């Protein structure tokens, strides 16, 4: 970047070679069962320097998340904010959850230079909104918990994977939570098919008319977050999509439970003096 003196200078402008590629057949996503979930690999407790961490791999999407804290909150007291449950600390004393979402420059088809910009901030906010209902922030007065998610490779449903990884990392860090948060992505295939596809791949997301991410707390069966955009058509269609997403989240839950149990066992074995 020309003005950024903190990084090594490269050329002013560069283009990906794909722009100059010979005409190839348009890659179209193949038809598949709309309710299929890609196999998920989840591992918690893998980073040595973070209080809690988790790595999630679903198809081509690879996300790593780390949690640090609780440490003293910076800045002044937060005056308003959402009213917490009455029996816990008043809103001004509740802990804060600071989320950071980063995309590696090599994560997508086109390289994205490091200062991510608006999209990363929007996703970080989405992460925070979805995780707050699950964390007992009233138990961490005047403290802040920092959650950092790093997307290493985007193979579709990146936000959903990041949500799940973040919740696993929080659980791994021993943060008090009401429940885990499981995320699921959906996308609406364009005309004429017009069906909602669960856990889309990157190709399906690129060709989609609309996208949706749902976050569910499986045991409490409450929706923690919902983020969607695009031209979806009828309201019933969106309701159908949300229902599909919630089912997908419930199906993912056992895998995540197992990964936490394994991580706890590993910790126990390592702690033997």
């Amino acid at each position, binding site marked *: 970047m020309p003005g*950024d003196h*903190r*990084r*090594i*200078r*490269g*050329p*002013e*402008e*560069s*283009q*990906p*070679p*794909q722009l*100059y*590629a*010979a005409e*190839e057949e348009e890659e179209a996503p193949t038809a598949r069962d709309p309710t299929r979930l890609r196999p998920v690999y989840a591992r918690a407790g893998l*980073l*040595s*320097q*973070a209080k809690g961490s988790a790595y999630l791999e679903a198809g*081509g999407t*690879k996300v*790593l*998340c*780390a949690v*640090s804290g609780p440490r003293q909150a910076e800045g002044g007291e937060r005056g308003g904010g959402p009213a917490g449950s009455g029996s816990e600390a008043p809103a001004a004393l509740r802990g804060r959850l600071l989320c*950071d979402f*980063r995309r*590696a*420059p*090599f*994560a*997508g*088809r086109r*390289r994205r230079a*490091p*200062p991510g910009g608006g999209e990363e901030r929007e996703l970080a906010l989405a992460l925070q909104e979805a995780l707050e209902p699950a964390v007992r922030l009233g138990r961490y007065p005047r403290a802040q918990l*920092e959650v*950092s998610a*790093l997307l*290493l*490779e*985007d193979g579709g449903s990146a936000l959903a994977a990041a949500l799940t990884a973040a919740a696993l990392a929080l659980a791994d860090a021993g943060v008090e939570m009401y429940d885990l948060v499981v995320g699921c992505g959906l996308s609406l295939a364009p005309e004429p098919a017009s069906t909602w596809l669960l856990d889309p791949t990157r190709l399906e997301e690129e060709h989609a008319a609309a996208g949706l991410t749902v976050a569910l707390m499986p045991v409490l069966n409450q929706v923690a977050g919902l983020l969607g955009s695009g031209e979806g058509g009828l309201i019933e269609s969106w309701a159908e999509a949300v229902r599909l997403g919630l089912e997908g989240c419930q199906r993912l839950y056992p895998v995540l439970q197992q990964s936490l149990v394994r991580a706890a066992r590993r910790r126990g074995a390592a702690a033997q*003096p």
Partner: protein
Amino acid sequence: DSSVYLRYIFNTCFRTVEPLEYYRRFLKENCRPDGRELGEFRTTTVNIGSISTADGSALVKLGNTTVICGVKAEFAAPPTDAPDKGYVVPNVDLPPLCSSRFRSGPPGEEAQVASQFIADVIENSQIIQKEDLCISPGKLAWVLYCDLICLDYDGNILDACTFALLAALKNVQLPEVTINEETALAEVNLKKKSYLNIRTHPVATSFAVFDDTLLIVDPTGEEEHLATGTLTIVMDEEGKLCCLHKPGGSGLTGAKLQDCMSRAVTRHKKKKKKIL
């Protein structure tokens, strides 16, 4: 057994309250708290080509320290002062993920130093001849963006970054490009790819200096924090010195420096087997 338990409690407290003294007791016995000897390296593991969206990638683990390198190749106009060369642009990122000492935002001092170090290694060792990256002099060249992200910071980041960069570059495959004479536009054949021509294999070896005299190899995060100085030596396979990085800290005698260099050469021989 209560006495073992009490000793364990004492040791943990001692380590927190007086870390330097704790360390000195180990150094006196010529070893370190993690069980290594002073000249022993941590196990290195490499995982190549795991990121399919990158043109080349590698994940390196040096003990707990984990660095991932992803290379993306793009087209650009060659620099005006060197029309027959391409670009290799490294960038080291130390996100808050890897250690609680880093904050999110623009690259801090340590990240900038590491990026500059990698740029120096690339330049001095001539790992890739920039002329190889030129497609059409003065008009089109390749630019290789090498993004290194530290995932877990437990000391010796420079060794891990150098190794990750080398492994990722060896994994890079570039599509064939021809310039159409009539339209003067580039034509890319994504189906035909070839590897880069890697000329040298630089390997970095880092040392930490304790109490101005004692040298230990491959320091962990805690050791780096307690050290009075650090030193990194980059060697290539012909025993040629590519880069020497000694950012301040306690001075070293010529003899000690020579000893470090010979250790770096031995290290290179061992590491080379892993990459090839």
